[in-house]
């Protein structure tokens, strides 16, 4: 099992924003997370990305219980990458942004160059390589953020509303990338969305959330 959540709760302002009795996520599959705004989808994704810790309950990742110590979390975060609904690019060029996670992993310059160019090509952003991240539109930022996440071949990709800022012309690029990441690179994907069309096109499983619970 990729993730196993037992009695996981995240409390905010005295209210449980995530309250999951049990959730099992299988590896190599695409999961869609649906539900109204405020249902707890983003908080759940952040917990799966090890960016947020539950207030109660246990999270198991690939058979090991997550203890939420900084020492344990950092290596885990190298295996799981989350892309925000409104991702942010660092104050550097598009190329440097996509190169950033590869530098952290100590790849050689030649290996980085090949990987970055390939990743930018996949999202149709190679011609923007030298452009500063701050000069891009919301949709372009989202495409670069997806390239930056996929360039380091994570085991799990968590996407918060991946097509919300993308125009209709570029939505197939994102959908194909998610599909390819799952099928070809065996990356497990969990994405949240309001689009039932996207769920039907991509997801192997659909989890519906409401008031922090999975229905």
């Amino acid at each position, binding site marked *: 099992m990729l993730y196993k959540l037992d009695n996981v709760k995240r409390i905010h302002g005295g209210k449980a924003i995530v309250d999951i009795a049990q959730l099992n996520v299988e590896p190599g599959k695409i999961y869609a997370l649906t539900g109204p705004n405020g249902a707890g989808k983003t908080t759940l994704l952040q917990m799966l*990305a090890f*960016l947020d810790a539950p207030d109660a309950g246990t999270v198991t990742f690939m058979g090991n219980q997550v203890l939420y110590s*900084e020492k344990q979390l*950092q290596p885990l*975060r*190298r295996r*799981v*990458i*989350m892309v*925000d609904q*409104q*991702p*942010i690019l*660092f*104050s*550097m060029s598009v190329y440097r942004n996509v190169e*950033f*996670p590869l530098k*952290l*992993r100590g790849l050689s310059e030649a290996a980085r160059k090949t990987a970055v160019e390939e990743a930018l090509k996949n999202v149709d952003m190679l011609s923007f390589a030298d452009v500063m991240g*701050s000069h891009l539109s919301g949709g372009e930022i989202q495409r670069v953020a997806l390239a*930056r*996440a996929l360039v*380091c071949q994570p085991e799990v990709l968590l996407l918060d509303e991946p097509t919300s800022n993308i125009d209709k012309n570029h939505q197939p690029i994102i959908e194909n990338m998610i599909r390819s990441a799952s099928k070809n690179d065996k990356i497990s994907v969990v994405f949240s969305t309001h689009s039932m069309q996207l769920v039907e096109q991509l997801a192997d499983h659909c989890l519906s959330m409401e008031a922090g619970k999975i229905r």
Partner: protein
Amino acid sequence: MQYLLESFGRAVSLIAQCDAELATIVWFSLKISLISTLVAAVIGIPAGFAIYLNKFRFRRALITVLNSLLALPTVVIALFVYGFISRRGMFGSFDLLYTQSAIIIGQTILVVPMITIFVISALGHLDIRYRKTAMTLGADRWQTSLLLMHEAKFGIAAAIAAAFGRVISEIGVGMMLGGNIKGFTRTMTTAMALEYDKGEFVLAVALGLILMAITLGINIFINYFQGNINERYN
């Protein structure tokens, strides 16, 4: 008015001639202030990051204390340091009193809280997503700090510039710990005070003009960085 205009004219001529005494005083002031600011930055920037990135008990209390220290008069800091480095003090054997090192120590203590608070503020103004994105991309604490430093570089540069402006224009530490010794610990502000006491306006006005030019330069520098910060957040 005539007297002031006359002093002003002679002061400008003193600056134009690069008067030796004037140059020495300006050089000492710049040297001492730059070293103090540099040492304070080396202490204050990591301290700011440590306080911002870590959640610990009494964190808010510590920030309140640091904020309070911003308003501490320089003479209080000078008095405090004097207690340690005077002959009867804990570090009296080092013979630091009335040396440039004493001024540097006092000025460093003066601006460490300033740089720390400004760095915390600069980091606090950054979008939280920078930190979360760095973390999810696999950055450890050190790598995350470096990225945040890159993103907050304008705020940090403004903090250093403001600290330099504070030390170069202070007088309490320079006077009480440096002793205003000619050719050794005489800085622009202590020299101006002395010239005023003597009723000699020319050197004081010349130093005042240079000090104003430096302060103006620092403010232009800060405004430039402030403009960059505003541009980013708007």
